[in-house]
C-alpha cells in the first residue's frame, strides 16, 4: 500500500475507535457517528483513487444502488430494528464471501502467480473468510426471517434426532476441504472444492438457526455479528489490508461482548443458546395449585397510581409489540404532574434486543435520567408503592430465584413482586417467551389489567383527564 494508503488506514482506524469510544455517553454519542462516517469516507476515497481502479462507472452504480436500498432500511420502525440488524449482517457476510471467492478465482486464474500468491497462510485466511462470510449470510437471513415472523419460517425451534451431528458434520466437511485446499491450492479440482466449501457454508448457516427459538435470535444475531467481524478480519489477512483487520476486530469484539452480556443476563451459556433448543413449548408448570387471577378496573388502577408517592414502571417486550411507548409517556407526564415520582426499571434483556426498552422510551421523549438499571432499582423496590408491569414477563418472574426446574433459573430479575402493590398489563394468561407460568400475576398484592398495552394505557391516561403533551 502506498504511503497515502497507510496513513488514511491509520486515520480511519483512529476515527472508528473514537466513534465507539464516544458511545460511552448519550451526550457525546452523535459525535461518534460523525467520526464513523468520516473514517468510512476516508477509507473509501483512499481506495477509490488508487491507480488500478478503472471501472468507475461500475462503482458509482453499485454505490448508488446501496443508497437506494440503505436509506429506506434506515427508516424502519424501531420494533423492526432487530430484523434490520440481522439483515445487515447478512449483507456483510455476503460481501465478505463474494470478495473472498472473487479473489481466489483471480489468483487461480493465473497459474503462474497462483503458487506465489496462494501461500498457506493466505489460503487459510481465504477459506476462513468464505466460510464465515457465507454462513453469516444465510444464518442472518434465517434470523431476520424468524424475527420478522415470516410465515414459512418456524418460530419455535425445530429439532430432530442427530441434528447436532448433521450440523457439525456439514461444517467439518467444509473445514476438511479447506485444509485440502491449503495443502494444494492450485490443484485441478481446487476450483470445485472452493465452491463446495462456499455451498456447505451456506447450508450450515441455515442448519445452525433452525433449532434455535425466535426469542433467542437477539443473542444469535450478536454472535453472527462477531462472525461478520471475523470475516472482515480474514479478508484483511487475505488482502494484506490492516484497516480491514482493525475494523473487523472492533466489530467482532462488540458482537462478542453484547452476546456475553445477554447470556449473563439470562444466566445461559453460548452452547445452551446455540444448541439448547430454548423456548420449545413447555409443559405448563404448576398445573397443581391453581391460584386465581385478580383483575382490576382501569378506574381503580388510576386511583391507586394517583394516590401513590412513587411508581416504578417495568416495561417488557409487550410494550414494544403494542408500540405503547408514547402512551407510557402520557401516563408519565400525568403522574409526575400530580407529584408522583415515576421511574422506569430496565432489565438488560427486556424486549428482544439489548437496549430495546431504552430506545423505545427515548423515542417517546422520556428523559434517560428516568431509566434505571436493574441493579440500582431492585434495592428500592420494597419501598415502591406501585410496580406497573407493562408487557414484561420473564424478566419479573420470581421463579428465576428458586425454581431450579425452570429454564430461566438463576437469571437475575427485577423484584417487582417486592413492591407494595403490583399492576400487570398483558393480553392473556399465556406465558412469556420462556414458555413458563409466572406466579407474580397470581400473587396476593397483584392486580391484572388485561388487554393490549396501548389500549389499556390510553384508558388509564383518560382517567387523568388525558394529561401529557401529545
Amino acid at each position, binding site marked *: 500500500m502506498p504511503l497515502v494508503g497507510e496513513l488514511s488506514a491509520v486515520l480511519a482506524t483512529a476515527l472508528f475507535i473514537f466513534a465507539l469510544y464516544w458511545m460511552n455517553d448519550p451526550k457525546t454519542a452523535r459525535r461518534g457517528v460523525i467520526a464513523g462516517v468520516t473514517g468510512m469516507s476516508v477509507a473509501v476515497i483512499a*481506495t477509490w483513487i488508487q491507480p488500478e481502479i478503472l471501472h*468507475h462507472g461500475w462503482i458509482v452504480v453499485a454505490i448508488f444502488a446501496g443508497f437506494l436500498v440503505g436509506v429506506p432500511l434506515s427508516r424502519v420502525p424501531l420494533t423492526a430494528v432487530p430484523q434490520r440488524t440481522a439483515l445487515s449482517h447478512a449483507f456483510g457476510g455476503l460481501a465478505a464471501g463474494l470478495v473472498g471467492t472473487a479473489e481466489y478465482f483471480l489468483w487461480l486464474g493465473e497459474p503462474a502467480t497462483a503458487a506465489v500468491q496462494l501461500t498457506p497462510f493466505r489460503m487459510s485466511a481465504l477459506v476462513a473468510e468464505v466460510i464465515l462470510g457465507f454462513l453469516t449470510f444465510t444464518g442472518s437471513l434465517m434470523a431476520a426471517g424468524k424475527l420478522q415472523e415470516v410465515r414459512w419460517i418456524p418460530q419455535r425451534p425445530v429439532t430432530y434426532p442427530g441434528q447436532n451431528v448433521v450440523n457439525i458434520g456439514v461444517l467439518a466437511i467444509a473445514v476438511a476441504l479447506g485444509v485440502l485446499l491449503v495443502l494444494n491450492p492450485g490443484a485441478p479440482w481446487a476450483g470445485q472444492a472452493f465452491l463446495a466449501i462456499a455451498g456447505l457454508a451456506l447450508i450450515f448457516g441455515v442448519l445452525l438457526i433452525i433449532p434455535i427459538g425466535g426469542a433467542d435470535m437477539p443473542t444469535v444475531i450478536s454472535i453472527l455479528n462477531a462472525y461478520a467481524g471475523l470475516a472482515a478480519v480474514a479478508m484483511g489477512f487475505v488482502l494484506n489490508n490492516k484497516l480491514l483487520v482493525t475494523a473487523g476486530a472492533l466489530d467482532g469484539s462488540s458482537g462478542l461482548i453484547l452476546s456475553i452480556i445477554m447470556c449473563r443476563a439470562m444466566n445461559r451459556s453460548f452452547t445452551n443458546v446455540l444448541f439448547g433448543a430454548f423456548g420449545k413449548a413447555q409443559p405448563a408448570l404448576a398445573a397443581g395449585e391453581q391460584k386465581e387471577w385478580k383483575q382490576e378496573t382501569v378506574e381503580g388502577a388510576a386511583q391507586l397510581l394517583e394516590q401513590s408517592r412513587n411508581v416504578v414502571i417495568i416495561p417488557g417486550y409487550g410494550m414494544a409489540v403494542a408500540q405503547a411507548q408514547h402512551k407510557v409517556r402520557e401516563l408519565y407526564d400525568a403522574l409526575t404532574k400530580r407529584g408522583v415520582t415515576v421511574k422506569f426499571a430496565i432489565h438488560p434483556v427486556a424486549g428482544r434486543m439489548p437496549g430495546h426498552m431504552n430506545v423505545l422510551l427515548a423515542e417517546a421523549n422520556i428523559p434517560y435520567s428516568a431509566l434505571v438499571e436493574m441493579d440500582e432499582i431492585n434495592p428500592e423496590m420494597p419501598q415502591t408503592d406501585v410496580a406497573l408491569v407493562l408487557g414484561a414477563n420473564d424478566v419479573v418472574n420470581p421463579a428465576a430465584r428458586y425454581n431450579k426446574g425452570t429454564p430461566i433459573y438463576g437469571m437475575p430479575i427485577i423484584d417487582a413482586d417486592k413492591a407494595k402493590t403490583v399492576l400487570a398489563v398483558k393480553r392473556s394468561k399465556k406465558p412469556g417467551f420462556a414458555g413458563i407460568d409466572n406466579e407474580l400475576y397470581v400473587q396476593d398484592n397483584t392486580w391484572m389489567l388485561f388487554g393490549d398495552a396501548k389500549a389499556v394505557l390510553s384508558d388509564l391516561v383518560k382517567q387523568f383527564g388525558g394529561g401529557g403533551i401529545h
Partner: protein
Amino acid sequence: MTDFGSMLFVFVLATFIGLGVIRRVSRLLYTPLMSLTNAISAIAVVGSIVVTGADHPLTIRILGAVALFASMTNIVSGFMITDRMLKMFKKQ
C-alpha cells in the same frame, strides 16, 4: 512471513482496544451500538471496490459489484439509523 506478523499484531492490539472501548459503552445505547458497528464492519467496502473497479474478468467484477452494493447498503443504513436513534436520547 513478517507480513503475517504485522497482521497478527494489528489484530491482537485492535481486539484489546475493541474490548476495552465496548465494555465502556453506555447501557442505554446498546441498540445504536449494534447498528454503528454494523456500519463500521461494512469496511469490506474497501475490498469490494478493488474487485469491482480493477481490470478483471466480467464475472469477477459482477461479484465485486454485488459485494460493493451490499457493503454500501450497510454503511448508509447503519450510520443513518444509528444517528436517528441517538437523536432521540435526551437528558431532560
